[in-house]
């Protein structure tokens, strides 16, 4: 819990730096996991490294030291081996075998921690959500600067991960996106996968002290998944994921400071908010983009329908209804403002409006005529498809349909099909 009255800004700086470093490493590894559909490997490993860490500490390793890293990597490999064993020998589905393996190893870890509490300085509950706030108190002196040990470990891991990613970039990307082709091209796919496994355990162990076993899952998967929604090119996605992870850590820590609560949990919440924002604003298939494109289509259709109904009223065989609903009124206002409908009481079409409306009605009747000629539909079945497609037919398609209907004047209901592009727009008329 962060002391809000604390004047030790330096402490907060170190905690933020640690969180950001840890998060950057996790986002880097997590991007590969997410595109390989291995996010749950991070879940399994983060749970399963606990017994490895505890045993390494018991054997005399210092938390954050090399021995502990080794123990954790071994534990991670054991988990994956156990999961595979359960899958191949006991015939379990992937999720069930992962569920069995990591809960069991984690349970063993917690029991070890609880049973050996006097000899192992690990709090079983902090194992779950970390002690980021206490990170600055365990320091190492470097160049007369007191640097938190956890930060050093995280920075070392981050450097190793970045170097590994740069050196093996081609192999990593190739195997991630097309493992079969990579194997055919002679790349050591198995070695690359094992390397990714080791990288995941390194990132997990580096994060363990700061954010705990479970929130590592959020740090691994969430920034990468959010970045994947935002950008399709992998190297861009990777950089953005790291950026999102770092930003989430800083904002999360500050929010936890402000609201006096657990920093690691708050970081996960902020990362979750980032993901939600990404689902909303993602270009192309984000929720906002989808809603906007759907609504703009609906709006265009409403405008065109209004124009067409006014045109039909002018033609004389129907009366245009006065706008009633809110959408109708908005459409009316938009058309008046855009110069399609005359201002004032008459509410008739302007020349531009008439021209646009004529094209829509032409599309509608051409389609009805074409359907009536080529598809044996009853008369009352012609209108609905035409009502839909009139908004989508281009000039070229209209021309071809007209050519096809050469010599058959009028639509099936006996009305004239208005001509294309007549009268031509003069130069001094404003184009809208």
């Amino acid at each position: 819990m962060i002391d809000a009255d604390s004047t030790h800004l330096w402490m907060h700086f170190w905690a933020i730096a640690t969180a950001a470093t840890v998060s950057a490493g996790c986002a880097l590894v997590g991007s590969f996991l997410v595109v390989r559909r291995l996010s749950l490997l991070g879940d399994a490993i983060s749970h399963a490294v606990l017994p490895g860490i505890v045993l390494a500490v018991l054997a005399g390793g210092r938390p954050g030291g090399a021995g502990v890293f080794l123990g954790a990597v071994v534990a991670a490999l054991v988990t994956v081996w156990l999961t595979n064993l359960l899958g191949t020998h006991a015939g379990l589905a992937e999720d069930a075998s992962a569920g069995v393996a990591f809960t069991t190893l984690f349970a063993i870890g917690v029991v070890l921690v609880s049973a050996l509490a006097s000899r192992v300085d690990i709090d079983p509950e902090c194992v779950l959500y970390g002690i980021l706030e206490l990170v600055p108190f365990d320091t190492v002196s470097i160049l007369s600067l007191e640097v938190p040990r956890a930060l050093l470990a995280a920075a070392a891991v981050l450097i190793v991960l970045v170097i590994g990613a740069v050196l093996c970039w081609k192999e990593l990307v190739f195997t991630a996106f097309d493992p079969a082709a990579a194997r055919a091209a002679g790349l050591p796919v198995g070695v690359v996968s094992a390397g990714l496994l080791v990288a995941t355990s390194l990132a997990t162990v580096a994060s363990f002290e700061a954010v705990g076993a479970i929130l590592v899952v959020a740090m691994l998967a969430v920034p990468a998944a959010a970045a994947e929604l935002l950008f399709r090119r992998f190297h861009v996605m990777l950089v953005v994921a790291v950026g999102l992870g770092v930003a989430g850590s800083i904002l999360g820590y500050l929010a936890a400071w402000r609201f006096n609560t657990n920093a690691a949990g708050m970081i996960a919440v902020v990362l979750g908010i980032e993901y939600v924002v990404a689902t909303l604003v993602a270009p192309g298939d984000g929720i906002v983009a989808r809603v906007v494109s759907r609504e703009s289509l609906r709006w265009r259709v409403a405008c065109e329908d209004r124009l067409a109904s006014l045109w039909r009223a002018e033609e004389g065989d129907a009366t245009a209804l006065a706008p009633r609903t809110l959408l109708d009124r908005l459409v009316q206002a938009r058309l008046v403002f855009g110069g399609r409908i005359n201002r004032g009481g008459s509410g008739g079409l302007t020349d531009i409006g008439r021209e646009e409306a004529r094209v829509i009605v032409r599309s509608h009747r051409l389609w009805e005529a074409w359907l009536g000629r080529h598809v044996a539909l009853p008369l009352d079945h012609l209108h609905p498809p035409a009502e839909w497609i009139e908004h989508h037919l281009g000039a070229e398609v209209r021309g071809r349909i007209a050519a096809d209907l050469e010599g058959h004047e009028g639509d099936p209901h006996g009305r004239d099909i208005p001509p294309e592009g007549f009268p031509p727009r003069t130069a001094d008329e404003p184009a809208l």
Partner: protein
Amino acid sequence: MILAVVDDPFPYGWIPPYNTLVVAAGVASVGFAAGVVGCFAVLRRRALAGDAAAHATLLGIGLAFLLGGGRRDLPLLLAGALATAIAALLGLVLIGRWTRTRDDAATAIVLGVSFGAGITLLSGITARGIPGSAGLGQFLLGHTAGLTAADATILGAVSLLAVGMVALFLKESTLVAFDPLFAAASGWPVMLIDYALVVLVAVMVVVGLPAAGAVLVTALVVIPPVTARQWTDSVGVMLPLSGMFGLVAALSGVAVSSAVPRMPTGPLVVIAASVLLTVSLLIAPRRGGLARWLEARRTVAAWADGRLLEVALRLDGDGPFTREQLLARAPGAAADSAFKRLVRSAALEPVVTRGGTHAWRLAVWGRELAAERSRRVAAWTEVLEAAREDARGHLTIDVPSPEAILGAARMKAIRESAAAERVAGGPRPGQPWQPGQPGGGAGG
């Protein structure tokens, strides 16, 4: 409080106190129901969705605690937990429907973020020193010591209700679990049944919280069904068996944790379940490691016996033969023990020759055995040749996989003995077919 008084576990003589009995019964029924409901989660591959729901329960506990004005009323807290567990499942569905994010990442996101939110809320509550908040952390790793008889009764009742639901809709759930396409084609509301099962898993996860804690409760739903699966191929057997495994795991975990101070219940329950699973993986009939190993040994031995008989039949035409002659023509690791078995079963009988060397010939019964084996080999060869021609002529894939008929262990034994023979250059009756080589083996 189950066995709460460690120094004197039975202060009332050998009859445990009423509260202990009720809590034990409650935990037992939770374990049973989790095992039963979990079967469908495992069969439908929803194990990790249940895990995400479990991690989300912490948030609901915190919210319910705040809404309830700081009362630690177990049913209220669990109702909150259920609400967020279902919200987490809903989140999974929404992510799947509205975004490009794949299932695995969606699960990790929901799990990590909802757990983070729960931790944030609980830490915030604890930091503000709201009275009664100290015990909320017990839901992380499970802690049954604080359960009252009333709480345990409610847990037990909900569990039995869940079991009742499964029993009531057994046919529908089984159908959806094994053949969702057929179920949909037959007009069953597959989505509805599916969602109902997932919600039932969420209910069990929530009810299991006091016993196993948010982090590990998923094991209570996953491990017993997997254990039961080792012992049976029938859903009707798997469900109660899984329930019993869950019951035993929950009870023994709770009992051990009450005897050891400062030990959370959840990990012990999980370890108990894993011990049951490990034992089952080893000794279960047919699927267990031991049974498979014995089966493989039997297969290898039977195959070696047959090969030896076949060679013996051929040698027998030229009169008695020595052990060395026989083994030289049927090499392989298992040949020696096969020879001993044939002698012991009196399929080979000794012939005393001049010079005192031991020679052997086939007994009448051994000859019958060998003839029958040759007939079978010829019949198989014929069938396989026909299937091969069929496969070539019609480009059909409807050739039965030999592993499906013979079993993987037997195929392995056959391949190994064939490889050993190729190395030794021994006789190769019924030559194995090589790609690109025209057919023409024995019996073609």
